[in-house]
């Protein structure tokens, strides 16, 4: 066994391992990667390179724009037919694979279990696929009678110039239901992130604001960037429900297009995954005057903070009392498990490279059980996700980002909530924080290694250097890391467990960490005859 990294005097300076990593690369690549590997120094305003093109030939964690748009943002919404215009694979791979759970009421539509595709063939590439797309829309309407259809462009249809927006308009006219398109070809942008932006724009233009429903609750909120992996949203719905807070719409876990249509009647937007959905929050504030706050419901303390933040916003004594009652009751349950688990997990080391917010949020859960995150990074983040939103004005806009449409949003004269704007001004004066996200780096320890868009080679070297007790990433990394003798927790699919959000989620996660960090099987990887002097036979019974 290699001696474990000693962090009792703080995290060691990882310059040496960084140099070793870079030494393997061709010079130009080394120069580029160097800017994406940062030794953290909180408060020093260190800059990280993010949201730049993946280097060809590098084994990356990243996916494509289509995956971000269809798979992540629209995928979890149950009452819309997500029709993929392209070859069969694109729709096939996004079919139920993200573990978004949903709970339709009796008789409600749920299309999540279906995969819809135009399955374009070479003749469509030559002669165009719009006619086939129109037929597919008609057939989907005839068979399934959906309220809405979203159409997603894939690489080849973008190249041949099929216009999904024109087809959507025409079909909307013909069939009388909401039909809208997304130009989310896989080659756009540099990662899934571009797809998130495109999806945000599409939902904002085509869905939000379609239904000016009357108020249904005293305190109405939307939850943005929550995708209901492993039932996270159910746990949060439970908490809001008990507190008397009306969750109008979630974007987009356990969600419906119908609820998104009246989501603009909310009083407050909560953002969980900043990277995937901050665009909608910004646009809703500009158009409707709904303020947004960044929260995290990952971790018991985070959940408490978020609930209090919502209560403080609404400034209602009864609500605050109810929220405090929930916190007290839930924290009691959490503490019992946390203490028991922490005794076994304290001092362990974790690394995490996932998505565009989880690599940050899950550090809170680890902290609660005494696990230190020595290195972390995002798959498809931008600089603000690392350094905080203050740096947004200084982010250079490159050609790949410029290719993604930025909507010009104007105040809706009739629906703009002046009352909320006034409320926001008042709360700002009292020190309440709106429209802000500090990012991941300020919250990480000095000398922790922050890496954007980590690749396979860097992963291997880091494991060798840190010998972490746990690695968090996705399915493509899982068995690679585990073959090295390090358990990996998937933070995209939760390894088919969960929920991990809210209080119940925190308890689940603590117990899961106890299981993973204390399991016996890793100790059995080496054969006994390897360490207990190797037996070399000199006599054989058989020939």
């Amino acid at each position, binding site marked *: 066994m290699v001696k474990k990294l000693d962090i009792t005097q703080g995290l060691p300076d990882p310059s040496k391992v960084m140099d070793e990593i870079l030494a393997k690369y061709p010079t130009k690549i080394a120069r580029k990667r160097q800017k994406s590997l940062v030794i953290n120094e909180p408060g020093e305003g260190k800059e990280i390179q993010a949201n730049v093109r993946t*280097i060809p*030939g590098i084994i990356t964690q990243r996916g*494509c724009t289509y995956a971000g748009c269809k798979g992540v943002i629209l995928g979890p919404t149950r009452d819309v037919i997500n029709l993929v215009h392209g070859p069969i*694979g694109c729709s096939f791979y996004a079919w139920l694979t993200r573990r978004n759970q949903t709970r339709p009421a009796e008789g409600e539509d749920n299309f999540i279990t279906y995969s819809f595709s135009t399955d374009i063939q070479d003749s469509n*590439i030559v002669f165009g696929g719009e006619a086939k797309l129109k037929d*597919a829309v008609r057939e989907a309407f005839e068979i399934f009678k959906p309220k809405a259809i979203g159409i997603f462009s894939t690489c080849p249809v973008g190249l041949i110039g099929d216009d999904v927006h024109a087809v959507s308009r025409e079909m909307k006219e013909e069939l009388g239901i909401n039909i809208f398109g997304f130009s989310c070809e*896989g080659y756009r942008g540099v990662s899934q992130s571009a797809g998130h932006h495109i999806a945000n724009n599409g939902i904002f233009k085509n869905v939000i604001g379609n239904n000016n429903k009357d108020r249904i609750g005293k305190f109405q909120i939307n939850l943005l960037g929550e995708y209901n992996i492993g039932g996270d949203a159910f746990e949060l719905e439970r908490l809001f429900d008990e507190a008397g807070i009306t969750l109008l719409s979630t974007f987009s876990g356990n969600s419906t297009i119908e609820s998104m249509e009246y989501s603009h009647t909310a009083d407050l937007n909560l953002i969980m995954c900043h990277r995937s959905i901050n665009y909608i929050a910004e646009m809703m504030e500009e158009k409707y005057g709904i303020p947004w706050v960044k929260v995290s419901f990952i971790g018991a303390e985070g959940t408490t903070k978020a609930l209090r933040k919502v209560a403080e916003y609404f400034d209602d004594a009864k609500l605050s009392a109810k929220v405090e009652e929930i916190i007290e009751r839930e924290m009691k349950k959490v503490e019992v498990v946390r203490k028991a688990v922490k005794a076994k997990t304290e001092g362990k080391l974790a690394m995490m490279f996932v998505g565009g917010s989880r690599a940050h949020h899950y550090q809170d859960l680890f902290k609660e059980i005494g696990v230190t995150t020595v290195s972390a990074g995002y798959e498809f983040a931008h600089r603000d996700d690392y350094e905080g939103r203050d740096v947004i004005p200084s982010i250079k806009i490159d050609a790949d980002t410029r290719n993604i449409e930025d909507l010009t949003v104007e105040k809706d004269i009739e629906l703009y909530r002046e009352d909320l704007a006034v409320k926001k001004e008042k709360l700002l004066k009292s020190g309440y924080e709106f429209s802000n996200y500090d990012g991941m780096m300020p919250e990480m320890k000095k000398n922790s290694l922050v890496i954007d868009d980590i690749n396979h080679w860097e992963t291997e070297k880091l494991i060798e250097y840190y010998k972490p007790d746990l690695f968090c990433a996705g399915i*493509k990394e899982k068995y690679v890391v585990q073959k090295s003798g390090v358990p990996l927790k998937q933070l995209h699919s939760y390894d088919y467990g969960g929920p991990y959000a809210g209080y119940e989620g925190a308890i689940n996660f603590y117990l899961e960490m106890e299981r993973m960090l204390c399991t016996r099987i890793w100790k059995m990887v080496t054969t006994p005859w390897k360490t207990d002097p190797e037996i070399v036979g000199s006599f054989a019974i058989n020939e």
Partner: protein
Amino acid sequence: MLLNHTTSKIVERKALTVNPAKTCQPIGAMYAALGIHGCLPHSHGSQGCCSYHRSTLTRHYKEPVMAATSSFTEGACVFGGQSNLLQAITNIFTIYEPDIIAVHSTCLSETIGDDLSQIVGKAASEGQIPEGKHVIQAPTPSYVGSHVTGYANMVEGIVKYFAKKSDELKNQLNILSGWVEPSDMRELKRMLKLMKVKNVLLPDTSDVLDSPMTGKFEMYPKGGTTIPEMVSMGDSLHTIALGEWATEKAAITLDNQCKVKFSMTDLPIGIQATDRFIQAIAKAGSVSVPESINDERGRLVDVITDMHQYLYGKRVALWGDPDQLIPLAEFLVDMDMKPVYIVSGTPGKNFNKRMEEILGESVPEAKYKNGANADMLLMHQWIKENPVDLLIGNTYGKYISRDENIPFVRMGFPIIDRIGHSYFPTLGYMGGLRILEKILSALMDKQDATCPEESFELVM
């Protein structure tokens, strides 16, 4: 109901595919390339394809699946992907040090007209491919055929590049293994060993996608067909190609290129297809069939006779790849079961002909369809019209199984919610025994769970 929008009313569709019974070419090329020793697959297109293919293969095998990508952005689509691929080749050989890079195209690089052989040729002439290293390639446009086509194209690409004819005839057979599991590759090798026939199995994913836990990650595990083996294929006595869809192309190429004649035979699933396989080997290798093989066959036949009452007349729905569905349907008919509904998204005109031969007289009510629109929605609608007793296919059948309360045996690709497929073969007589055991267990579990208490049996 998880598929509550599926009704028995079948609307004629010409454009919409719902719940496909196939996926796209590059994933097949990636799987085939993993069966060569020291090879890193490379996807030439935007990075999402590679990510999806790696994820799906990983979920199926629960093993590391390494592959690189050209990571196209819009610029590459406009100016062509040449510079991306050239840069990728240099980076891959420098950083990951494989012996072979197996490049396959995607619908994106195909649509813009990238010529892989020209680009790879340029890399070679500019000295970007180190001495003793290789870059092979296969065209895999996703809008043609299916994942099986991609597999076939890569296997063809492999033999085209490596197989050489020398003056010396080698006393060995080429076995083109078709898209089967690592466990099946291992089983093929075991059967050939029993028959004492020297062979080259291509590709061979055993010891690659079923590798042991040692505490050390191997980027290139010990398994896979080696370069000398692949080169020697041009000097073999004969080629046995298993499954027309996956291997015929490569077999023809070997014949044209190196004059190695081939026999096309079905994947050895069930009794008769395994019989034909064994006979083909015996004939091509000029060996007699050993007693141990007769014993294995006899055991399978014996168990079927013992359990026939549970099998007789049972209606079965199947979906998957033609190479598997054809011998599987035949096996079911041999056990007097009725494969009544069969769909495969993979096109190919021989599908209907073969199914007609197998089912025409025995199961005249059978419905089967392949190619465009032969999807799982259609199969589910057939089931709604007239139910079946058993489902056999990949993981995606679990929704139908639950909704309709039909026992379900997982076979095919992908299986992402159970294990076993990569460790226990379904090929050969021993594989037949495993299929049989799974079918019986599924049927009997249902009987046990649903029968009235007074008919609950201890002995079955």
